[in-house]
């Protein structure tokens, strides 16, 4: 949960300041390196956080000025409805953020395994 929240906040915050797309790797990688407890927790936590950050931003655009352009891009990519582009956006961010979070964990060991009760 912590990874999800941190990845979401960090990625969304950084992207507002610097919109380059490759932050979808770097921000989750940092979160994975600091907070993950295992490779898979880094993958799913950071992946979900990144996916949610990108899809929320996409939904806000879709609801605002981006409604026309998303309709045209949906027609161009032949995906039918613009909201499917939100799913596609989520999928790409999830994949990138997930593997980056996992790599971050394997680089540092994250927070280590949870102590046995």
């Amino acid at each position, binding site marked *: 949960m912590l990874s999800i929240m941190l990845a979401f906040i960090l990625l969304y915050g950084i992207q507002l300041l610097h919109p380059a797309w490759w932050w979808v790797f770097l921000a989750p990688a940092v979160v994975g390196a600091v907070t993950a407890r295992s490779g898979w927790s880094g993958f799913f936590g950071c992946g979900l956080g990144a996916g949610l950050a990108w899809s929320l931003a996409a939904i806000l655009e879709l609801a605002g000025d981006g409604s026309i352009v998303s309709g045209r891009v949906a*027609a161009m990519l032949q995906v039918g409805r613009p909201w499917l582009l939100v799913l596609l956006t989520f999928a790409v961010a999830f994949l990138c953020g997930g593997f980056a979070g996992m790599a971050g964990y394997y680089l540092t060991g994250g927070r280590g395994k949870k102590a046995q009760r």
Partner: protein
Amino acid sequence: MKRVRFVFTAVIVLALFWALGRPWPVAGARIPPAGKFLSPFAGFWVSGRALDELPGDLTLSGLDGEVAVLWDDRRVPHIFAGNDYDAWFMQGWLTARDRLWQMEFQTDVAAGRLAEIIGSDGLDLDRYHRRIGLPLAAKNALEATSEHPASLTAVTAYAAGVNAWINSLSPADLPLEYKILDYSPEPWTPIKTALLMKSMALTLSGNNAERGMTLTREILGRDASNRLFPAHRPFTEPIVPKETPWAIPELVHRVPPDKLPTLTEWEFTPVVETEPKETEHATGSNHWAVNGSRTASRKPILAGDPHLPLSLPSIWYEIQITTPEYSAYGVSLPGAPGILIGFNRDIAWSETNGESDALDQYLLKFRNGDFEHYFHDGDWKPVSWITEEYRVRDGKNLKEKIAWTHHGPVPYLPGEKPFSPQLVPGAAMRWTAHDRSNEIRAFLELNRASDYNGFRSAIAHFDNPLQNFLFASQDGDIAIHHEGKLPVRREGQGVYLSDGTDSADDWPGWIPRGQMPRVLNPSRGYLGSANQNPVSSSYPYFLGNDFAPWERSARIFHLLDVMEAITPERMLAMQNDTVGLYARKLLPELLAALEGYEGTEQEMQGLKILRNWNHAYDADAIGPTLFDRWQRELLNLTWTDEITQGGFSGRRPKRDTTLQLILDDPGSAWFDDRDTEQIETFTDLALASFQATVSGLAERLGEPGEAWRWSAFRPSRLAHLGRIPGLGRTGLHTSGQYGVIRATTSTSGQSWRMVVALGEKPEAWGLYPGGQSGHPGSRHYDDFVDDWVRGEAYPLLFLDSPEDPVHGLAGRATFRGQ
């Protein structure tokens, strides 16, 4: 173990970064780089952000002084600048703000650099543009432009304005198409403006029928070919009234020996099999002007509607430019300073394509397969070579040498397959667009002209593509000039492929500008043109033989003849006229040929529809569909057997020639089908073509009904300029046809409708199919399209000053230099 896992996942991350950061070919198309493109912070999602907000007051580095800009409710910018430099700077800045991708893409294509953007798929078009010398033509034009200080100032100020906009963009701000195609804009330079003008020259004067005509001559013989393709087409009323006297001394031409170059006798030229093609112009333009003797206001009215291939973003950008010296309103080409078609306080002007022949192909004899020397006037002359380098995205770069002779470039050497089937391998092309010229100057001076003399001196700088310039002034003058650079040719020269070995076929000089066709204030009180031959046979110079048929111009002249107390509303209605004179002449003959015929139920239904049709190509009518198919079938049955021989085909004679045959000689041998034993006449072909028409339509569309309506059968579309799917408009239910005033085809049509009523203050109406914004995410990308389909036009807001009290302005801003 963790280190191994890290390396493994790091490799996956790097692979994702690489794979999602580049475009991929999928099913013949390139999909955008998924990571970059789907990013909601920098990708396509933000390409709609704040697009429709207008700028507030700004400081722009490069401006000299202060410029006020007002946007009306259709987002047309009205520039008020203190000097010319600032006006053109702002025109560049504002146009780039709305149309940057279009501006750059058009000029990249003209420069032969498409492969840099889309990869090897663009290479054939690039090689075509470079081999026909388009970049070199632009370089020559820019040299000429640079010699005229005001023109140079215009193109450099415009470039500075464009660059000021480009420099303000972050990657996230780039127009959508850059993100789809994954590239970035480069600095704008004046050569791009020159390239844009040459691209227009190619569209309007690059058409060349000499290969098809030569094949036709080889099949039919010279006499028949000349008779079937006359320079002065039947039924045509020329632009210059027939009775106009010409004070031109008799011309003496050097005549070559009576030997005809053929395609087959030239050692290296292969014969290519082709199908006979529709030889009518799919595009053209109309304009007309009436003087005060025929208008309700007693002042002239001018109307113009250029017909061009249609696209989104539109070819035109609407703008008003005001400086202390002048104020002009109209449409500009995104990428070039000034206004091309429009009006100012004193005059209005509009162009149609002149259609005179500005390009000849010369068959060459090379000494051998090295192509280092070609034969000319008894000598082997050296070929010069220009090296072109092509950068190919994601592919191997290419370097090639292009041969040039004294005629011009040899786009394709013997044995090569030409990109355009009109070009003959082993032939050199002589095209006036290659010569030094400064068309920008003509428009800049036209924008500020205030009377006929100013108009005349402005357009004298216009060389290519040759245009009919129509003029009207509030002084009461109306005029039309067939203006441009055209060689002196003997009768028929340049209709067929020319002999590149003999200087008798070279161009000996130019028609003096003072002797080009023109009319000022004709007694009939009106003028007009619709791409028809500008002159009758009494004009001593030969201009070509590929002009538009009589139909549109005759309809225009007829309507103007019968109208009295003309108002702008009548002119606007006239631009929407859909009556086809060809149908009006031909259909009664066809129906008469079928008199008493008892056919199938569908055929009888079709005949009933045609008998009740009013010859108007209206969107909901079925008559146009039936007639259009019927006449096509008839032309095919009449000519295909005649002009196809030995595996290759010539040009099909034009439909007005066929109509004349039907009216004058329905038993002509041309109607006989050579492949049957019996002798067919027009009546036989009329019946056979009707039966084929109805059965073909029924097979394709079912019973006569909705699908047979003209606009359903032949809908129009505005494809995206870069052919990106989803970014154009399709299925537009338009009225019109290329032979009527409202000239519309599936891909071309009235690219700008304008009517200007001159007076104390000009009143004008206009509309183009598109929208002021070139951004697909904008509400103003295509907001004029539906009104264009309906045939409407908007009142144009001509402002005298930025302080004019106007309701409904969308925005206002002041721009200052730093």
